[in-house]
């Protein structure tokens, strides 16, 4: 095996890449800026630390990343460019993501709740996109979260990641798979590596840090210290900073639940709550002002001793078991025959999953010439439609935490629905087909067909059987 020494890389050329300055030198390896191959975007090259005296950890991290990254796509991961043969010249060339790391942002001090929410939602989107690709990051920390100028988030460093389509080199290897102590989930401490909800725990730890400037569990340096989070709950954020609103504490503490079943079951749901603080289902978590008492902690400690690692469930099936369903209700025509049909279909779809979030949306047309949204009659119309929306969903008898209601005002209902669905990671849109009597009304017709044509997700168009019309 002939591996060039690290210094021989800088200034050299390798497989058509011109190697520039070294921008990072860490325990796992080195990172260089590279040019060449007519790339349309800036690139970096990662080179693992190998050779006598090295732990092998860098190589395993490299090998894992080289397996997982090429299989990932989308705007939330760096683009993969090329890799070298591991046995000869191991290197990995990827896109250089221009932006600020969350670590740099946090260093400037705690963030205002609104900023925590907007950055947190962008991180959640990125995490969700990863989970939908059957991968789990498992090493989420502020250093690995890059915030681009447009506010989008890119996750980097997949050296500890898990991908359900590939052999997990790190399975059963606590020595290598430790993750980052402040952010690692309890089940990771116990050796589980395939649960996407581990990333939701790390997300919670980052939200906590962004909000309070403190780490929820400190920086434990021993296994015993790491295991504390199996039963110890963090100091509630509102105790550290009374200005933290209850909805934010609710979201953070729900992400940080020791038992993965008690957390958000998908990052899309975290993003949704962060974007819609008014719709967060507030529980006792939001009001918590102390950590659990000795008795409760002892009980949890006892339970954690018996807890077994989570059963294997592929990340994607975990996430798709918790769909976000959006139903578009035409509240302008509440007595329309399509309403019961839409209710029936929605109930049928929801019955297929015990874990879901239903978003009910009504779009009221705001004509360009009408009065502004602040005026008396506009807000009156808004409330009127919200009440009708609530009335529409009542027969489904859904618990509040599964439900949210939104009245959107827009001159273009199709775009409003599409944009809202995309922004909230909706998995399925349900909406009515044009009513036969309305066929002359081109705008509603165009909503159903336009949404179907342009949606980022599946669309279920409900039609009242012709015989009933």
């Amino acid at each position, binding site marked *: 095996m002939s591996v060039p020494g690290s210094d021989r890389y800088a200034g050299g050329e390798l497989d058509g890449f011109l190697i520039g300055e070294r921008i990072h030198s860490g325990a796992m390896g080195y990172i260089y800026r590279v040019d060449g191959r007519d790339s349309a975007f800036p690139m970096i090259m990662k080179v693992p630390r190998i050779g006598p005296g090295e732990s*092998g950890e860098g190589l395993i991290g490299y090998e894992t990343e080289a397996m997982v990254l090429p299989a990932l796509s989308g705007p939330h991961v760096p683009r993969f460019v090329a890799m070298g043969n591991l046995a000869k010249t191991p290197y990995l060339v990827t896109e250089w993501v221009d932006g600020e790391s969350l670590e740099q942002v946090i260093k400037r001090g705690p963030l205002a709740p609104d900023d925590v929410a907007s950055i947190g939602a962008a991180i959640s989107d990125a995490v969700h996109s990863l989970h939908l690709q059957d991968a789990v990051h498992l090493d989420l920390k502020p250093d690995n979260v890059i915030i681009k100028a447009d506010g989008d988030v890119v996750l980097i460093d997949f050296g500890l990641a898990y991908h359900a389509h590939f052999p997990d080199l790190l399975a059963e*290897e606590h020595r290598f798979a430790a993750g980052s102590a402040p952010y690692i989930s309890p089940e990771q401490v116990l050796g589980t590596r395939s649960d996407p909800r581990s990333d939701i725990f790390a997300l919670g730890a980052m939200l906590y840090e962004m909000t309070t400037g403190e780490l929820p569990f400190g920086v434990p340096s021993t296994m015993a210290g790491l295991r504390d989070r199996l039963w110890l709950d963090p100091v509630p954020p509102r105790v550290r900073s009374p200005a933290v609103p209850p909805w934010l504490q609710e979201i953070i503490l729900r992400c940080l639940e020791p038992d993965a079943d008690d957390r958000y079951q998908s990052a899309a749901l975290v993003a949704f709550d962060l974007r819609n603080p008014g719709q967060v289902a507030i529980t006792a978590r939001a009001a918590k002002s102390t950590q659990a008492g000795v008795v409760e902690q002892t009980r949890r400690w006892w339970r954690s001793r018996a807890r077994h690692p989570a059963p294997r469930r592929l990340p994607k099936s975990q996430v798709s078991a918790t769909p976000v369903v959006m139903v578009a209700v035409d509240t302008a025509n509440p007595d329309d025959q399509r309403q019961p049909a839409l209710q029936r279909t929605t109930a049928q779809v929801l019955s297929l999953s015990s874990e879901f979030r239903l978003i009910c949306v009504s779009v009221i047309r705001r004509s360009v010439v009408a009065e502004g949204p602040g005026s008396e009659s506009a807000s009156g119309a808004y409330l009127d439609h919200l009440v009708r929306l609530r009335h529409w969903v009542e027969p489904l008898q859904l618990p509040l935490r599964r439900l949210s209601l939104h009245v959107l005002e827009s001159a273009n209902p199709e775009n409003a629905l599409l944009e809202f669905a995309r922004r909230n990671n909706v998995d399925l849109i349900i909406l009515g087909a044009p009513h036969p009597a309305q066929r002359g009304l081109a705008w509603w017709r165009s909503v159903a067909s336009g949404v179907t044509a342009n949606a980022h997700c599946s669309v279920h168009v409900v039609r009242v059987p012709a015989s009933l019309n």
Partner: protein
Amino acid sequence: MDGSALIIALLSDVHANIEALSACLKHAREAGVGRYAFLGDLVGYGADPQAVIDTVACYAAKGAVVIKGNHDEAVEKTPRYMNDSVRAVINWTRDSLSDEGKDFLASLPLCVREQDFCFVHASAAAPERWDYIDSAAAARRCIDAAQVTYTFCGHVHDQELYFQGAGGKTMAFRPVPGTPVPIGRHRRWLAIVGSVGQPRDNNPAAAYAQFDTDRERITFRRVAYDHVAAARKIRDAGLPLSIAYRVEKGI
């Protein structure tokens, strides 16, 4: 190994199912496969032993690796361990094969080693004992005995990839069909390629694998074929109904 043959098709446990074999060979040809390895159990269970042997013999003449399996051996001499219905099929197979066909089966090796490959039906650790690789420990014994980078076997009908983890432990991975998995030469790998003619994971589609020698990637495949016709032939030949049912349901 021929330098120009970059992709090897790994086919095992055909079990006299010519419909399944033809579908896999067509699939492999279309995928640009340049070399073939048949990992044993050409016959047994199915209704077309002669057709399967004739097909495989053609590939053998062009350089394919062909390994002997326990059902192939049983045609020479029925072993004690086989149950009545399998025994009935073996006796029927023996009667329906030409002498050349029987000679072809008898001439097959138990194990072939070539460069950094080992091809074997059951386990490279004592191939003649027909031990099943049904645990990480059994996989470890096979890998240790093979002493090569890549070991390919069949016998167990479910697809599985065994590998050494970061700490050297042998672990199992259930592959996702159609996804190329990088299996670099710096580790040792054991692939159980699945059964062409009698899959048993509740999916009747034929199973095989392709190894890309240049890019060091293995892709496990499932190929839909006319399993209903294969099952009907088993019934029409008067072979045990339970075997036809298994082919039909993939159990």
